[in-house]
């Protein structure tokens, strides 16, 4: 049976094993290249962040525009490895989940183990399908970045595959 999760507390994280298929119902935040650059910069300058990173889940995604009458446009994952260089400081600040596509660096996988976090995959190149799991969407910060702004998304039964678990086991390194 597939697991259901709603947030990433210690217990939920400990229960996730590499390769597990899970459904997430809860809140996630989009952030991709430039949002990461800004978040890392804000952390370095000890500025206030647009959302609390403690226990948060970031989705590497830059949605297409929202058509009239829809909650969100096409919104699949982007390549995670481009975020690797900014990930360590986010994990240090309490980030617990990341959703994207593709492999991570050894450094990030080690940090995921160290900070007891999880890296998930979701269906790549399937933005129209992913939009159907989103119940609400709002731009939370960095609006000037357009598709690279931070969106707060409420997702329901969002399909995920555990790619790096809190023990540091990586689905791509068998």
């Amino acid at each position: 049976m597939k697991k259901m999760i709603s947030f990433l507390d210690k217990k939920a994280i400990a229960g996730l094993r590499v390769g597990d298929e899970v459904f997430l119902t809860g809140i996630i935040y989009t952030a991709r290249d430039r949002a990461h650059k800004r978040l890392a910069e804000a952390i370095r300058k000890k500025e206030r962040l647009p959302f609390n990173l403690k226990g948060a889940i970031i989705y590497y995604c830059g949605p297409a525009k929202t058509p009239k009458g829809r909650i969100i446009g096409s919104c699949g994952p982007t390549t995670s490895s481009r975020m690797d260089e900014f990930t360590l400081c986010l994990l240090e600040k309490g980030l617990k989940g990341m959703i994207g596509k593709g492999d991570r660096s050894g450094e990030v996988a080690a940090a995921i183990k160290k900070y007891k976090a999880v890296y998930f995959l979701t269906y790549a190149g399937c933005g129209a399908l992913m939009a159907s799991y989103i119940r609400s969407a709002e731009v939370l910060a960095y609006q000037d970045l357009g598709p690279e702004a931070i969106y707060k998304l409420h997702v329901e039964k969002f399909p995920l595959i555990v790619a790096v678990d809190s023990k540091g086991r990586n689905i791509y390194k068998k």
Partner: protein
Amino acid sequence: MKIISAKKITETVSGLCIKANLDLRNDVLSAIKLARSREKNKRAGNILDAIIANAFIARKRKLAICQDTGLPYVFVELGQDVRIKGDLKNAVNKGIEEGYKKGFLRESIVKEPILRGKAGYTPALIQIDIVRGSKLKLTVLPKGFGCENKGQLKMFNPTAKIGEIKKFIVEAVKAAGPDACPPYVVGVGIGGTADYACLLAKKALLRQVTRSQGQCASLPEGDKVTSRSSKLEQDLLKDINRLNIGPMGLGGKTTALAVNIETYPTHIAGLPVAVNISCHALRSATVTL
């Protein structure tokens, strides 16, 4: 002499942007379905099912197949007996702006590659070929950048063995690994110059993926080269599908849907080979006026 107005070009390009981004090419969809029927790995099969479902949802709900609606690459085949009333390149860019806006597609283009700045829809990359006749053929290829980032070029010695070339192509796919949305369509350009081989590799993606014919419909007639590339395409596809990368890089025998090779004469001193990888959401649309 045929007269085509800039307005007509704008309207056509606008429609092509929407069609390409919302309506997955039938040959690509067929290739994915065929791969699905042959895939024995359970997880790979499930992912291919999701990819097929996504294509149908995109069509039905008028959503982009992928949120990365790409860098709009426009191929213009202009008959030498056509007269354009107005500015061709402006008309194309206007069509991109209109189509991307109307289709709720993504602003993914930064005008300054180093300074970046605010993202917009244009400029498109416009490739113009002058051909015989009095027709104007317009093709929009929205190229996603997850896969574009995995492109490679190598200038081989003219004495290079075919095995070395094959190895380079297979290694390029291996290097793309799970990151660029496999199963891939692998475009390969062989010959010409460094830049021309890259263009050939991109043009190879326009060809149907269900059958590898070793010819590119988009090349002007005089440029068409029939070569032994058809066998090479089949051999490479087999080698690539033995890599066990699979859909999303999670294993399976569906690593590539097709390998399309375009060739062109080259210099006695060289042998350029370029690889342009497309994700499974290979999108393009064409209209001939």
